[in-house]
């Protein structure tokens, strides 16, 4: 029922084709998972994509249309999403307004909220995993690093989330982190939408720590109890947190409520960081301008 008309891309474990669902004429993307590549059978990323996308059904999460085996390859049929936020941010010929930014962040937070209320952590939120549908809807994609919220005593790997969007607790090697890591990533994406350049572009994992704390201040036990117990805490440079004035200068187009929201999403201490519900209920989404309707977005 599906055609593979054009190769759209090739990754380590999959080839992506654009095609059509013949019975409905709907454009689709077929992610063909190379099964021979992984000596341990089905690749973990593919397994996670299938596992979580089967359970999530939300306008702001990519839809898994079908899954099938063919010629010993696993095929994920996904809805066709021709663009992503990274393309939009980088293409400076595209002008976008504060209302547009509000719309994209609102849709992102709704998608993240849906994952979190299903106790699923995405763990790789970044602009090119936020895809855009022809009708303007933004959809969270690539659940290859996703996992269920940990059981209480479970140990998690901190080697997740693409570096520039990685939360401080992950930079410190935390093993019992929560969905707060996704909120941090959304905060960085929000900043990048306003600045049109990467907000915390570390050259490597060590530099990432330095870039993060130079921009936002080095956390101390006072505001983040036990942060000094992380093994690599003593090696880091101490920087003061930015004043409100400094933040205003950094995000000149941002309203007070926008600064409030981005500050809430990027609170160092994950325990105090805002969760998806608090973000969605923030004043920023209740003040003018109203978020641009998806169909009117660039």
């Amino acid at each position, binding site marked *: 029922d599906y055609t593979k008309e054009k190769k759209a891309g090739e990754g380590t474990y999959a080839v992506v084709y654009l095609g059509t669902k013949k019975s409905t004429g709907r454009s689709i993307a077929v992610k063909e998972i190379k099964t021979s590549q992984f000596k341990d059978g089905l690749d973990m990323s593919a397994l996670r994509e299938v596992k979580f996308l089967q359970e999530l059904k939300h306008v702001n999460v990519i839809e898994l249309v079908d899954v099938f085996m063919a010629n010993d390859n696993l095929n994920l049929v996904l809805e066709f999403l021709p663009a992503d936020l990274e393309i939009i941010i980088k293409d400076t010929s595209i002008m976008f307004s504060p209302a547009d930014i509000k719309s994209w962040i609102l849709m992102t937070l709704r998608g993240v909220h849906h994952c979190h209320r299903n*106790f699923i952590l995405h763990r790789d939120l970044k602009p090119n995993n936020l895809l855009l549908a022809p009708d303007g809807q933004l959809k969270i994609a690539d659940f290859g690093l996703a996992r269920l919220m940990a059981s209480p005593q479970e140990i998690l790997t901190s080697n997740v989330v693409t570096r520039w969007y990685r939360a401080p*607790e992950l930079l410190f090697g*935390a093993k019992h982190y929560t969905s707060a890591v996704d909120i941090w990533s959304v905060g960085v994406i929000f900043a990048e939408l306003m600045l049109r350049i990467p907000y915390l572009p570390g050259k490597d994992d060590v530099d990432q720590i330095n870039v993060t704390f130079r921009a936002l201040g080095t956390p101390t036990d006072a505001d983040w109890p*036990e942060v000094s117990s992380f093994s690599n805490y003593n090696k880091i440079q101490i920087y003061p947190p930015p004043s409100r004035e400094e933040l205003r200068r950094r995000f000149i187009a941002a309203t007070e409520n926008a600064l409030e929201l981005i500050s809430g999403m990027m609170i160092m201490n994950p325990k105090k960081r805002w969760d998806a519900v608090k973000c969605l209920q923030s004043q920023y989404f209740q003040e003018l301008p109203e978020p641009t309707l998806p169909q009117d977005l660039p």
Partner: protein
Amino acid sequence: DLHKRYELVENEYNDSFIRDLQKKKEYIASGFRADFIYDRMLTEAFM
């Protein structure tokens, strides 16, 4: 789901297992949140 069939009242729960974890440095530093755990268990119980 506007009307969840439970109310999360953290200080009402005597859960020694979770309480012990909450005191561990590595859990505190990681941002471990008992209320997230309770919310998940209660959601699974009343879904």
